[in-house]
């Protein structure tokens, strides 16, 4: 490895960083949305992401087997993404109902431990379903590279980068422009006052889980297609990293989670130019520790009032 990487290598890594950063951002949004409303870390969010990835895998696998995917690729991809979003959303709703809602008034540690339990449970459910093997994601996306000067991007990278941006714009509009989005903001601000204003707080919390889970599912299908292999443990590391991204941007802050995702993706992609590749995962954790020590509210975060 040369000490000074060439500009092409740097540009390539920036693109890789934007790709993976978009994925981190999509997962991070789920953490941040839930934290913004319930002030809890949904530790099982990584597993929701994993279930989404597997749902997409099963759908795509069936469609490829039946030959449908070779004629209607766009429709197959759409089916995989929508199926994954539906699966993850249902799972998110069940999780909220069974593991979190009974603990809403409990001491702070109880929901976190319950979430860890749910996370272990879901990992093992999937392990029993798919027998702990690596699954190879169907390789359906058209191969091809767009060259921009000396830099080249694969179609799939373009798809992920644009797709994740599109999802985020959609979310932003949803939160800012719709009635439900407005209610979500109100509940995040003050649950009791929102309830007095006639907002069904339970329904809004469920909506939040649905939205966050659906975004994670999109990320799950993207990760499956990008890295081509998935297994039941795949949720853990992206989950932790996306949480890092959410904290990086300022947890509870939607724009912050997006920014944090890209910052983390770029830091990892550029970090491997200076550090040995095995230490890639250390970058995220070190960044997390540093940000919490020096700027605990994150890049964009507001001061979150201390809760006893």
């Amino acid at each position, binding site marked *: 490895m040369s000490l000074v990487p060439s500009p092409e290598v740097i540009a390539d890594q920036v693109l890789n960083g934007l790709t993976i950063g978009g994925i981190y951002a999509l997962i991070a949004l789920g953490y941040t949305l839930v934290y913004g409303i319930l002030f*809890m*870390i949904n530790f099982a969010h990584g597993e929701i992401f994993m279930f989404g990835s597997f749902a997409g895998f099963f759908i795509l696998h069936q469609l490829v087997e039946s030959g449908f995917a070779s004629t209607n690729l766009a429709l197959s991809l759409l089916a995989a993404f929508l199926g994954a979003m539906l699966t993850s959303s249902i799972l998110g709703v069940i999780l909220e109902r*069974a*593991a979190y809602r*009974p*603990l809403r008034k*409990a*001491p*702070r*540690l*109880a*929901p*976190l*431990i*319950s979430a*860890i*339990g*749910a*996370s*272990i*449970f*879901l*990992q*093992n*459910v999937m392990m*029993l379903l798919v027998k702990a093997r690596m699954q190879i994601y169907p390789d359906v996306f058209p191969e091809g590279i767009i060259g921009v000067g000396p830099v080249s991007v694969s179609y799939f990278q373009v798809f992920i980068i644009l797709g994740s941006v599109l999802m985020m714009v959609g979310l932003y509009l949803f939160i800012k422009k719709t009635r439900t989005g407005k209610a979500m903001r109100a509940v995040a601000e003050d649950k009791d006052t929102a309830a007095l204003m006639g907002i069904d707080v339970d329904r809004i919390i469920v909506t939040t889980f649905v939205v966050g889970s659906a975004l994670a599912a999109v990320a799950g299908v993207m990760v499956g297609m990008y890295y081509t292999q998935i297994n039941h443990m795949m949720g853990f590391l992206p989950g*932790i990293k996306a*949480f*890092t991204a959410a*904290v990086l941007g300022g947890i509870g802050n939607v724009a912050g989670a997006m920014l944090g995702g890209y910052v983390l993706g770029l830091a990892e992609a550029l970090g491997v130019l200076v550090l*040995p590749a*095995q*230490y890639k*995962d*250390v970058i*995220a*954790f*070190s960044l*997390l*520790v540093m940000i*919490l*020590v020096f700027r*605990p509210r994150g890049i964009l975060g507001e001061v979150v009032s*201390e*809760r*006893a």
Partner: protein
Amino acid sequence: MKDPVIGRWIARLRLVPAWAWYAALIGSVAALPPILGNYWTHVLAYIGIYIMLGIGLNVVVGFAGLLDLGYVAFYAIGAYTYALFASPQFGIHVPFWVMIPACVALASLGGVLLGIPVLRMRGDYLAIVTLGFGEIIRIVLNNLDSVTNGPKGLLRIDPPSIGSFQFTTPTHYYYLILAGCLLSVFIARRLNDSRVGRAWIAMREDEDAASLMGIDVLKYKLMAFAIGASFAGVGGIIFAARQGSIFPDDFSLMVSINVLCLIIIGGMGSIPGVILGAVALIGVPEVLRAVALYRMLAFGALLVIMMVFRPMGFIPSTRRRLELRGQE
């Protein structure tokens, strides 16, 4: 007590002093290995290591209320320190008994070093940062090939010895671990009843009020971290000596989560709870080898159910029980 015969018996049993109960209990536990045979002695010794880890983490989580998900890091520090200084890896062979204080010192130093930056954080942030710390330690152990031999691990670690006597059989280690557990229980009980222990509990219940009462919150949190870590250091060194070889994967996040869960299932803050939790969590899956496949599934579900229906655990500490009654 309706039946007068049973009532009289209970009254007579009450006359037996507490130390006699403890002596009888310890005596019967000590008599187990010849009855149970090598395999179960081995399992019991394994449970014993987890009891030590549980007691240590209980100081951090149960007494001081700090959720540490990277506890395995200190266990790894203890184990790897001993393995590096008492194996053919560098040809150094420091005796086990000399390494114990060294491992305790290093593990508590690790606790303080981690504690200084993170202890100002709120509960759930603290959990994730300590989790990250545990993972960093494991990744470094896995990749620092020149020192730790990477995933190939450290092999042929020296067994402890007293004079010419060497610890070799599971029974030897059983007694070593039993002694470690007894010492840990003793220290934890003394700590809990001390000024320090009361300060921790005050802090756990209300940090602001404790600090207004003149408790240096940061100092006591650091102490909890350091003391908790030292138990893991001792657990690690015994683990390394008993296994004879250690690998980075012995120190995965699952160890931290297992230890945390055994505390919670047993009853946070209570020492009998830790022992019961260790037996339930480490021992029962051994009995249920046949259904090993579903063990983690049941475990995860159990954690959720436990939090929903009995968040205080099976044997909550006396103080907690009183607190919970007070709220009703």
